[in-house]
């Protein structure tokens, strides 16, 4: 299928916060209530439309367990977007965000868009982390924030699509070097708007060079 852009995402966060469920809900539109531990990394993909353009999302869902941390780090560099997920019913998963963020910032390219996700918003009665706290954390670290429920699908689409929008805007602004595939962005094979893309690529080239 033809696409204008291809974005690579990673999903990170503590074990059991619902990373794989978010992906499953987004790609297959279903929910899996049993926690099946992710081993290493799993792959999923879906097409979305932004600004009338087909955008292919390739998503790598990483294992949250500490044992896999060194493996999952290899995925930061090549990703254009990251969903950093915590569980609103478990305070510790929120407390670990700083570590995750440090890790991500250290190993990724500086333009990577990070979306902070407070998952399991359907479990309001067991909530341990207030929405305001998530918002504050996101504001403090310059992230986009959203509460989702992989179970009811609330905000799941939005989380993935808003991240893509953010990346798309950065491309338009020329922040990303789209010719460097190491940034996690690829121009589609049938993308014929060569002039615009080329110009933004040129501008992005300088910025990209500076950051790397």
């Amino acid at each position, binding site marked *: *299928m033809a696409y204008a852009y291809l974005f*690579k995402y990673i999903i990170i966060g503590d074990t059991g916060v619902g990373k794989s469920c978010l992906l499953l809900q987004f790609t297959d539109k279903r929910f899996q209530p049993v926690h099946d531990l992710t081993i*290493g*990394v*799993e*792959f*999923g*993909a879906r097409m979305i439309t932004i600004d009338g353009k087909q955008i*292919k999302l*390739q998503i*790598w869902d990483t294992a949250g367990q500490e044992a896999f941390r*060194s*493996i999952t*780090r*290899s*995925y930061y*560099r*090549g990703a254009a977007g990251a969903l950093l997920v915590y569980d609103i019913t478990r305070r510790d998963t929120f407390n670990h965000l700083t570590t995750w963020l440090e890790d991500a910032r250290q*190993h990724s390219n500086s333009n990577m868009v990070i979306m902070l996700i407070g998952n399991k918003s359907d479990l309001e009665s067991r909530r341990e982390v207030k929405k305001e706290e998530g918002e504050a954390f996101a504001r403090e670290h310059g992230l986009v924030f959203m509460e989702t429920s992989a179970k009811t699908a609330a905000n799941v689409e939005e989380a993935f699509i808003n991240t893509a929008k953010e990346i798309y805007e950065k491309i338009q602004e020329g922040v990303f070097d789209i010719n460097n*595939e190491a940034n996690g962005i690829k121009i589609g094979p049938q993308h014929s708007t060569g002039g615009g893309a080329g110009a933004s690529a040129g501008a992005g080239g300088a910025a990209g060079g500076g950051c790397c």
Partner: protein
Amino acid sequence: MDFLKSGLKTVLGAPEPGQQPSGADTVERLVERVNNSTLLEDRRDACRALKAMSRKYRVEVGAQGMHTLQQCLELDRADNETINYCLDTLNNIMSPTQFEEEEENPNVPMNIGEQFTEMFIKNHQNIQLVLDLLDEYDFRVRFSAVQLLTSLLTNRTKDIQEIILVKPMGVSKMMDLLADTREVIRNETLLLLIKLTKGNANIQKIVAFENAFDRLFEIVSSEGYSDGGIIVEDCLLLMLNLLKNNSSNINFFKEGSFIQKMLPMFNTPDEEEVGWSPQKVSNVHCMLQIVRTLVSPSNSAQIISSCQKIMKNCGLLDSLCNILMASGVPADILTETINAVGEGVRGEAAAQRALGAVLAPSNPPRPAIVVLLMSMVNEKQPFSLRCAVLYCFQCYLYHNETSQASLVQTLLPSSTDVSSLTSGQLLCGGLFSSDVLSNWFSSVALMHALIDNNAQKEQLLRVLLATNIGSSPVSLLHQCTVLLQQSTKLQSKVALLMLLSQWMSNCPPAVSAFLRAPGAVGYLVTQTCSNEHDENEYLLQGMSAFLLAICIHFNDDSVDNYSKDSLKQLLVKRIGMETFSAKLSEVSRHEAYSRAAKHPQLKVKAASDILIDYEFCKLFKGLESVLIQSLTVVQTNGDTEEDTESLAQYKSLIRQQDARLHELLQQLAAETQRGHKLQAALTDATSENSRLKDENTLLKAQLSTAASIQPAPSVDANIQLEYQQKVSALTDEVNRLSAVNHAANEELARTKKDQDDLLELLADQDSKLNEYKMRLLSLGQPVEEDLPTEAEQSLA
């Protein structure tokens, strides 16, 4: 070598005349030089010399120089040449292959490279050092580092994979080298990545994530696809590594539209004179392997089906079919293509339909399937090709009632078109051919047309064969039973038993038809009872038992002599249930059974090994317990003479036991009554006893109170009186004594006062005495000194 020697001379100085230094000595001196020289040039020269010696004297260089070389990598990083020598030396030491120079030397152990590798990787930092050197752009350094890593990986694949996996950016660094414009480095990197990705799913995923498929397809296309050199093969081998048993990567491959990118690989050349170079054969073979990996029956059904759809829709399946029908294709490529086509359509109706519609460019045009089957029943074709056709045909029929029906249709009398050859006719021909393999292939192929398809099982019963001219036609099933009884060949018998089992399971009309065939049941019973001891005989006995059980279980009692019950009795009498189950279990114990049960595709090396088919294993597994259960359950319900006899026995036994039970019950009642009486008596006795006890206690208490009251007062009074007298006496005494004391005190005070007066008087007298003495002295009268002293003394 002369150059080398002179080089050594310049480094080491000329040897002393008449004394040739041994290799070990030289190595030792060189290592010392690397360690101790302050000048970079000297260290570099020594490293160069070490490198030169490391092939012939690898044990010495490794044993003495390993540590030094590691240090050198760290300390002399700035000098690319030195680093290059170090890396090459290390690579020589740890090389997995034996050098020409050391072939003669018996002191070099076979796995010396592996041993040194083990030493080298003990410190993980060493791997990091080499990985860091990949960042160096200098050709020699980068190239040598890649080679060294390849050697290390060859020697200790798992260990190094694990180390690299936890090094941040370890895999990514190597992936970057694929983009190196210097082809030599790119090609070496390919070899490195092939080793790196072998059998490690996590590394495979990271490599795929780092855009490996894009890079590889770029290289493959720039090298001219299948016409390219060995680099294309390397790229394909790497892809194969990334995809094998890695569903995440297969998914990624599919989602990344890489299946479509494979298409140009299978473009068959238009002009036929362009032959197949060995390299092209290898390239296409790899590509076919990739196709098969994507649609392998061991993948999840979801992945298989979506890959098959894409392959069909993008034209890949057509391209593969074109190879099938092209001329001049080497046999092994053809075989593998047939397998790939098979797996490409297996269970996917649209793809199966597409395969069924392919026409061979023959005159008249025949369906490709028919042409393939012609090869299958042709003795002259290579064995592996015939196996592949069977597999492909099985895949074509798999889960597809339409293709199953169309096969059976070609055998039915109404539709027979005399002029054209049909697949059904080919299979029947194969069934009755004198070639054992053709029998086997045809039986199994026919069997696959009947799997889970009762309609076709009944349709196939209608098939009639004209055996001899003039004689009346016989049914296909009848003919199969005749063949079964006549055949002397194991493979043919097994094949027919498999076909009949599949045909008759869940199909009572087929069972009836079989039971009506003369000699069929007798043959099965004889086979099952046969007592020959041989692995293959066991298998035949077991399969016969299986078919017999099917005859009983799926029997609708439409054949008088062989009703369900009569067959059961026959089985119990002639064989016995235990023997029967034992024989049945022999089937799954056979080696060929466990081999076939593993994978839908036949995995046999030689034609003689071919025996059991995957689908038969499935049928057997599903029915075995059902059959045994149905036989045993029915047996206990049976109403035979034996049963009535034993029933009578049991009845009398029960009666006896009943009488005895009654007797015992009466005894029990009597005993209970007695027990009750005793209980009552006991209660009486107990209550009496307790009453007496109470009384006793009461009396005891009274007695003790009475005894204690009487003697006490008299004793007390006496003592009291005595004490009072004593007390008054003592008080008087005290009074008297205090009076005395008082008087004495007064006396003492008085005496003290007298003493004071006397002392005063004495002092007066003393002063008077002194006065008189003075006066006497002044008058010149001598005074006796003694007197006053004596007086004083006496006073004191």
